[in-house]
């Protein structure tokens, strides 16, 4: 029972972290139609910048400045790179972000080398907040939850209560109309891209010390962010939140409990084959949930796309 609670907290942390990435991406994706493959790269840049800043000015300065730098960089890339490519259509845009992801990873290796960076939790937060049945919950995790939720509330406030937010919301559903109404859509695009990448940067800053700061960190995150926003429904902030938490909990619970495929198959009335080592389906029988935890989101996405193409909360068909 206690373990369920612990897993709920862990899944929440994973989910909220994913949300910070998918929130920005869902805005960018649904507004500009850009499948930004480099989104996770900005997450990585956030971690590296924060590490570099923390060496000189400490963790808190990193938390403040690294996302800003990432956001400005993102806006600059939109302005001088993506906007130019925009006229050619979506596929070139995609290739652009693809190449960008490749280049950022190489540049990070060029500048910081290929090793893992010793970027660690600040001492103020390096203690156990509380324990549940022997499982310690580090204070930093509570801090991550706090940061993510603040950002979500802030984002929700901006989107629903401010004029800029209204325009962005309208642009999410009707990009053409908003342009026709005389708003400076390129400026909005640049802003959204900047904010989206800055959010990814924040995620990098707070995830770097826990999940490791290394050149492969963007690749590890990979396409799961796309999966999240497709499951949640394009352009839906709530969808992104729900899908992130769903993925966070599904993967956490799948890893925490060894659900064996043989049990499921037995439950369905199939008898375990006698001679397992000769059976061509032997690998299927021996699969356990931790093995497949990280591909469950992909299965979920394919099912959603087949049966509910608009996603959980989406209004538009993907």
């Amino acid at each position, binding site marked *: 029972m206690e373990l369920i609670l612990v897993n709920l907290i862990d899944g929440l942390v994973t989910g909220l972290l994913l949300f910070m990435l998918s929130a920005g991406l869902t805005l960018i994706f649904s507004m500009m139609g850009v499948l930004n493959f480099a989104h996770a790269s900005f997450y990585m840049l956030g971690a590296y910048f924060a590490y570099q800043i923390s060496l000189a000015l400490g963790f808190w300065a990193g938390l403040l400045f690294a996302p800003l730098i990432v956001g400005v960089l993102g806006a600059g890339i939109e302005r001088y790179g993506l906007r130019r490519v925009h006229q050619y259509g979506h596929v070139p845009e995609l290739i652009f972000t693809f190449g960008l992801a490749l280049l950022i990873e190489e540049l990070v290796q060029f500048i910081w080398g290929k090793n893992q960076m010793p970027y660690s939790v600040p001492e103020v937060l390096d203690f156990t907040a509380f324990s549940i049945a*022997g*499982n310690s919950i580090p204070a930093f995790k509570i801090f991550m939850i706090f940061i993510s939720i603040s950002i979500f509330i802030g984002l929700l406030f901006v989107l629903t209560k401010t004029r800029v937010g209204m325009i962005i919301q309208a642009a999410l559903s009707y990009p053409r109309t908003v342009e026709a109404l005389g708003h400076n859509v390129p400026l909005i695009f640049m802003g959204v891209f900047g904010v989206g990448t800055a959010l990814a940067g924040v995620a990098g800053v707070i995830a770097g010390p826990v999940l490791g700061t290394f050149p492969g960190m963007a690749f590890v995150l990979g396409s799961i962010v796309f999966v999240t926003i497709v499951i949640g429904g394009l352009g839906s902030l709530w969808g992104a939140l729900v899908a992130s938490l769903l993925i966070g909990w599904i993967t956490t619970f799948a890893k925490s409990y060894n659900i064996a495929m043989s049990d499921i198959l037995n439950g369905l009335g199939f008898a375990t084959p006698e001679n397992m080592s000769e059976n061509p389906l032997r690998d299927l029988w021996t699969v356990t949930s931790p093995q497949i935890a990280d591909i469950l989101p992909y299965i979920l996405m394919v099912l959603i796309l087949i049966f509910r193409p608009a996603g959980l909360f989406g209004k538009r068909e993907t």
Partner: protein
Amino acid sequence: MKNLSKLGVVSALSLIIGASAAFAENIKIAFIDPLSGPFASTGTNGLHQFEFSADYMVNAKGGVLDGQKFEVIGFDNKISPKESLIQLQVAIDQGVRFIVQGNSSGVANALTEAINKHNKRNPESRVLFLNYAAVDPALTNDKCNFWHFRFDANADIKMDALTDVMAQKEDLKKVYIIGQDYSFGKAVAASAVANLTEKRPDIEIVGNELHPIGKVKDFTPYARKIVASGADAVITGNWGADMLGLGKSIIDNGFDGPIYTYYAAGSGITGAFGESGKGVIRLIGEGQINPPPSDEAAAFYTAFKEKYPDGNVDQSRISNTIGMLAAAIEKAGTADDMVAVATALEGMEYDTIWGGKLFMRPNDHQLIQDMHIQAHTNEGVTFTYDNSDYGVVVESTVKMASMDIASTCEMKRP
């Protein structure tokens, strides 16, 4: 378009061919390992150790035979079996006769099969495969061949040695086994179970599971299970980011027993574990670093750090590979006849600067050597890793580990 592409091919291929013309008198060793991409740090550091060993141990002493020098050439295989095979072919065309590789048993498996076929089909340009780190037991068992030599202890030997030491710890009651979901991870788990049930039937294996390799972002759920299982010790074969992620997560979530593992030193991992890994991380491996086993070893280490301040001597087997190869070439009296060199390597006994003896077992080409359990710590460390205050210190040693372990290898000699 045809002309353009042809021009490109001509210029590109002439580069390869041009490169093969130079340095004809050197004995060339092709280092085929990742030099770019996520595993590049291990690969680059390995290449430096090879280059340094060749210069320091062979070239500085006048080379082998009539003064022939070793030349180590790096080939970037991007840890891809396909690229490795292409680079192998390029290397052979450049006149390379010795291939060294270590990262990923998958690549090693592809290479050993390709080399076996190549040597069968092209007797005039045979090559030897000196495997310095791929530890899948199959390579010296079912899949062994005459051209393959392994200078690292395989996963079974390491586990045998590791469980010998664990078996003596009376207070050890519960062990948790976790690893990456692929051949090596599975081999480690199977070997651990087999050895523990044999040596200490009273130890309860409270968990035995696999996780996807290189895909796990957050190890917390695994760590929770380990803590909840009440395990006294953890055994894992994880390496790279998976090792660091798992280790950190286990420690962060309140585990304080030993984590027995294979690869948790150097390449930034020692530095990243830092204080938190002290008293927890235990490694099984060859080659004693601390305390320095001999003056030569200390001198070697110092010289290496002078040349590569950012590097680590974390694979002493690399210098063993170079040293034994040089000895074999001297003994065979040739660097061109691979059958002669291979025969010279078979059964060779070699005194390593890292302490103890090395013995290349002839029936399966597996090197037999001393195994050490080393602890991650900052006390008594003469040579640290990653320019941190931390390094590894030998706690216990198994002499000539698994000298008489059986092998299923049926060596076919030419």
